[in-house]
């Protein structure tokens, strides 16, 4: 068997590099993790991702891949067991559509909600509530977006955890509450209970402290 060298450049608080950790662990791929300091990026990172100079970057046998969804698809196509994406082309298209929705719509709104206040913040909260309702429409009765086991879209939706933690850190009423969004709320509990996934979230207290510092000094708060 050929020697496999897999490296992952990431940061402990980034949902994007955490996504790759989930994917690699689901596949049982051995990898070396390199924690980057984004205020002092390593020459290796700058060499492997000269275009964006960002994490995550996966380096497989010396060849770099950047952008979290691109990396996830690469991992899925390179290590074929325990598929992350559905095999049916239509199901695959749905997973990609909703993953894009999460990064294009939900993530920017989540970042905005902790940086705004008053009427503007209310507007963003309504937006996020609707986005989450839309996601519930995709999840329906399933245990995970991926079905019986978690898949591409569950991993992509990890950013919801970052929103939940940020809101908790700021003492905000959580948007994702059991009353208003029971389906998604249930899914989140199952996700956080999953043996593989739970290894790939930042330690709660450290994450709360980090969020408090990052967003607490902004104009947002109750």
């Amino acid at each position, binding site marked *: 068997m050929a020697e496999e060298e897999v490296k992952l450049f990431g940061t402990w608080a980034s949902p994007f590099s955490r996504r790759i950790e989930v994917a690699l662990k689901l596949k049982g791929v051995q990898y070396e993790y390199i924690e980057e300091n984004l205020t002092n990026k390593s020459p290796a990172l700058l060499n492997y991702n000269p*275009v964006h100079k960002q994490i995550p970057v996966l380096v*497989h046998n010396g060849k770099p*891949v950047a*952008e979290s*969804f691109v990396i996830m*698809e690469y991992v899925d*196509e390179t290590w074929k067991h325990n598929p992350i994406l559905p095999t049916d082309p*239509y199901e695959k298209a749905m997973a990609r*559509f909703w993953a894009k929705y999460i990064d294009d719509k939900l993530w920017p709104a989540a970042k905005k909600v902790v940086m705004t206040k008053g009427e503007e913040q209310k507007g963003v909260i309504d937006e996020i509530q609707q986005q989450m309702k839309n996601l519930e429409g995709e999840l329906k009765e399933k245990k995970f977006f991926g079905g019986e086991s978690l898949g591409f879209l569950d991993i992509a939706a990890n950013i919801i955890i970052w929103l939940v933690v940020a809101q908790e850190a700021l003492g905000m009423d959580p948007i994702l509450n059991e009353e208003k969004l029971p389906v998604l709320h249930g899914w989140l509990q199952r996700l956080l209970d999953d043996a593989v996934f739970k290894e790939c979230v930042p330690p709660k207290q450290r994450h709360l402290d980090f969020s408090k510092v990052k967003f607490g000094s902004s104009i947002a708060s109750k």
Partner: protein
Amino acid sequence: MASGSVADQEGQVMLLGFWFSAFVKRVEWALKLKGIEYDYVEEDLTNKSTLLLTSNPIHKKVPVLIHNGNPIAESLVIIEYIDETWKQNPILPQDPYERAMARFWANFIEEKVTEPTGEALVSQGEQQEKKVKELKEAMEVVEGEAKAKLNKKTLFFGGGNGVGYVDIVLGWTCNWMESIEEVGGFKVLDPESQPQFHKWMANVREVPFIKTTLEPKEKLVEFFRMVRQDRLGLVANK
């Protein structure tokens, strides 16, 4: 996404689009490359059909591909679906690493070229200057890639003589960019500093199934002028 409410016709391929949309044309190029028969439905921007609104309730936008009654939205998602459903004339490479590179560049193009161009069209002053600066920087990267990948034997990013994923994603520049520049009053295309990119654009324009779909410049300019005036008019009235 809608299901059950869309007409279910085994094997039928329908594409909902607008004539001026580069995103729609991309999907047409993918379908034509594969030789897939499809019904094209021209939507009215000011009066979107029930079919469109039920097929893409989330974004209410074109393109939407409807295959066997199943709707798919988002041009890049649609193109990958087409590639995986019809195996002839592959659009993406076969090798996982090459596929990752193609997807990486497609994302770069969308984020750094396509989106800022749309934003530059409907902005002015400092805001527009910022977008144009972003675009010029992105085009340097694109020219760099073109220099690295293309030559007399390799005309397209897809390799060799045939267009591939990256060509289809970037291809809109060969026709729409000039019109948008004219309407927006800015310049990003520069044959002197982008010689390889300009060679590539010329080659894209000549691809038979692309050539027949390109809209005349005057028609695009007229349309985009209306879009710009509409958008800036709204802002001024606030």
